[in-house]
């Protein structure tokens, strides 16, 4: 009886919510239905956060949620970014898709492209959470295409990491603030034992991200114009590639195979003095480098002295709801609302302290997040990342754009391929960027 009632409530909520928005025939997730405690609703959550510490932290959140919500039982299933694109297609085709799926700016358009109503709009849920906790607009922008297609859960931003010990030894007082200083410092810090900077130049997403951060500071963050045409080939992109080309001689020679892990290993081992990455550098710094926390420096992404702007690549990962069952939709919404509560949110974020940043104002103040030892120890760098997040952008989602085809470009790492054309095949930056433009146009055809 209780379950029937809750189904009715959920359906009613869906109907009324759908009428309220009036913009789409798709059902919108109810934010009010409460599943019956007598019949636990099973919710399966797929995410791609594989490191054991993240899985363990998530499990703690799940255990607490399941204990405090007897009517809902949420389980996590860890997936792999390398296989999720094909796996989710099969899962949707065989009606075994998860109820909640990890969301990312360029992944959600992909799942939406799998068919009508595959992803359920969550506009009302996001609005409700926004009223309570106030989302960072940069985070919600990645999922807004008429409706909201996912709930942003945490942000990640790149900054410049530098080794203060090496800077001291080289007599460099301040970290570079401009491209010109970055290049000069990289050159000065390169000697027989180490390289000035560790840059990825492999055909991978890591390379895409680092050069995009530099592109963003040169007003080259837009890959598309407002009509959806690719605009990669422009003077600002070329000058960012020129800088990368100038910096790579001061990066280890095997940078052409570098992804995320190698620059961090080079940096922590002392083989490189600088690198550009997200906040995953904080937790292992002392153990891997043997240096005190005070020797880990961080700075905003350097920008061109002429015609530059603050900028960096910004990801806001989230959760998209896939289930068509209104009761499950309500249960999934309940779980997401639970996670976003400030006293729980910090536990969720500190699955990877320093890397996962709050996407709500309430989260920024949450004691559950701030009390983590890593956040406490590196508070200055955490604050700097939050400052950098103010100017965060993501390809395909700049200036209000929502580009469904961005996955075609990022999936093939075409920006990284362009770097390789320039650095490995010795094309000029202009020729490489022109090549990249044609590849992108072919990809989004």
């Amino acid at each position, binding site marked *: 009886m209780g379950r029937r009632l809750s189904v009715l409530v959920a359906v009613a909520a869906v109907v009324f919510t759908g009428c309220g928005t009036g913009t789409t025939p798709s059902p919108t997730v109810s934010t009010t239905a409460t599943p019956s405690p007598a019949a636990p609703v099973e919710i399966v959550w797929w995410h791609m956060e594989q490191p054991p510490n993240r899985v363990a932290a998530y499990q703690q959140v799940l255990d607490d949620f399941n204990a405090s919500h007897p009517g809902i039982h949420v389980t996590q299933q860890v997936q792999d970014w390398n296989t999720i694109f094909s796996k989710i297609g099969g899962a949707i085709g065989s009606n075994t898709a998860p109820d909640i799926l990890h969301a990312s700016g360029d992944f959600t358009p992909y799942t939406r*492209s799998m068919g009508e109503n595959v992803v359920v709009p969550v506009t009302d849920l996001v609005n409700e959470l926004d009223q309570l906790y106030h989302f960072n607009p940069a985070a919600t922008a990645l999922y807004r295409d008429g409706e909201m297609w996912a709930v942003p859960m945490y942000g990640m931003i790149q900054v410049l990491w530098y080794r203060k010990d090496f800077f001291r030894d080289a007599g460099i007082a301040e970290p570079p603030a401009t491209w010109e200083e970055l290049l000069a410092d990289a050159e000065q810090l390169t000697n027989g034992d180490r390289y000035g900077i560790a840059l990825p130049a492999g*055909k*991978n997403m890591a390379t895409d991200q680092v050069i995009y951060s530099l592109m963003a500071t040169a007003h080259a963050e837009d890959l598309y114009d407002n009509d959806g045409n690719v605009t990669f080939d422009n003077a600002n992109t070329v000058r960012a590639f020129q800088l990368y080309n100038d910096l790579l001689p001061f990066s280890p020679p*095997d940078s*052409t*195979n570098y992804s995320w892990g190698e620059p961090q290993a080079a940096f922590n081992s002392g083989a490189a003095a600088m690198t550009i990455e997200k906040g995953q550098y904080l937790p292992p710094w002392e153990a891997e480098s043997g240096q005190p926390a005070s020797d880990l420096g961080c700075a905003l992404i350097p920008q061109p002295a002429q015609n530059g702007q603050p900028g960096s690549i910004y990801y806001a990962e989230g959760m998209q709801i896939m289930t068509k069952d209104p009761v499950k939709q309500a249960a999934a919404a309940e779980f997401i609302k639970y996670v976003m509560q400030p006293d729980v949110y910090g536990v969720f974020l500190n699955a990877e302290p320093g890397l996962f940043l709050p996407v709500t104002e309430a989260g920024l103040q949450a004691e559950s997040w701030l009390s983590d030892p890593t956040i406490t120890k590196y508070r200055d760098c955490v604050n700097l990342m939050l400052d950098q997040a103010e100017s965060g952008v993501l390809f395909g989602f700049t200036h209000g754009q929502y580009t469904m085809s961005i996955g075609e470009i990022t*999936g093939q790492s075409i920006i990284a391929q362009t770097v390789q054309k320039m650095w490995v095949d010795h094309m000029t930056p202009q020729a490489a960027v022109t090549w990249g433009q044609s590849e992108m146009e072919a990809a989004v055809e």
Partner: protein
Amino acid sequence: MLRTTGILTVAHAATPSPVSPWRRFVAIRERTYRTAIGYALLAPLALWIALILVYPLINTIGLSLTNMRVVGSPSSFVGLDNYATVLASDDFWHGLLLSLLWLLGNSIVLTIVPFAVALFLRQPWRPARQARIWVLLPWVVPTVAVAVSWQWMLNSNYGVVNHLLEATGIISAPLNVFGSADLSLIGLILTNSWHWFALPAVVIFGAMQTIPSDIYEAAKVDGATNTQTFRHITLPMIAKVLFALELVGNLWTFNVLDIIFFITRGGPADATMTLPMELYYKAFKAWRMGEAAAMAVIVLILLTIVCAVYVKRFRPRED
């Protein structure tokens, strides 16, 4: 009428006795039963082969005639458009060229090294006897471990290989093996060969062991040199094994994806983008499943033709 002469008795015995219809029926029934049992026993295997071989093949051909992008997404029939697109693309021909270089390099290394190792293993010395066990180690190591190990050993910053080569004065600056467009394919060929050389070495060694020793002794008595013995006795005696080994080995090698994926992912700048890698990227990175399927069918046809020519041209004579 009975005859008592021995000859007639024998002739009588050789004449087939008339078989009754009942016995003929029983014989036919038994034969049918045996045939049915045979087919029934074969059926699961045939069904399994159809399931894992024929169905995917037909499905791939079907896919290649559609414009499917993401796996499982809606698509429509486009005829042979995908084949035309693939054959007109530079990526395909670039991948084919690299695949042929990859195959050639591996074939050379995986012929010379296993032969040398097999000859070494045949020696009666104690180290050779012990080597028969530990020579298998590279083959046992998982591919991902091989990839990671060689990436580290050949790393230009802290790799032991570069360190040794520099220390001995062979090179003056570290080699950026997997990061260089010129060296990466060679590095991959050597890594792959290191991983797989043990298998053909042991097979060749096993084949050599089946050659009777008295043939070698006779050759020695006749004054044959080592080279003559190898050329006129060893090689012909193991020709059938070599034929099968080369055929299967080359097919495997052509289709290798894992070690390339783990180490270079087709890079740098597509310098190691062999056809299997190209196919993978087309299907799972560019999400053009129809084109990838067409590429797979073309590769299948190419390999079938090459195999047919190889079998016809190089199959050892039965005599």
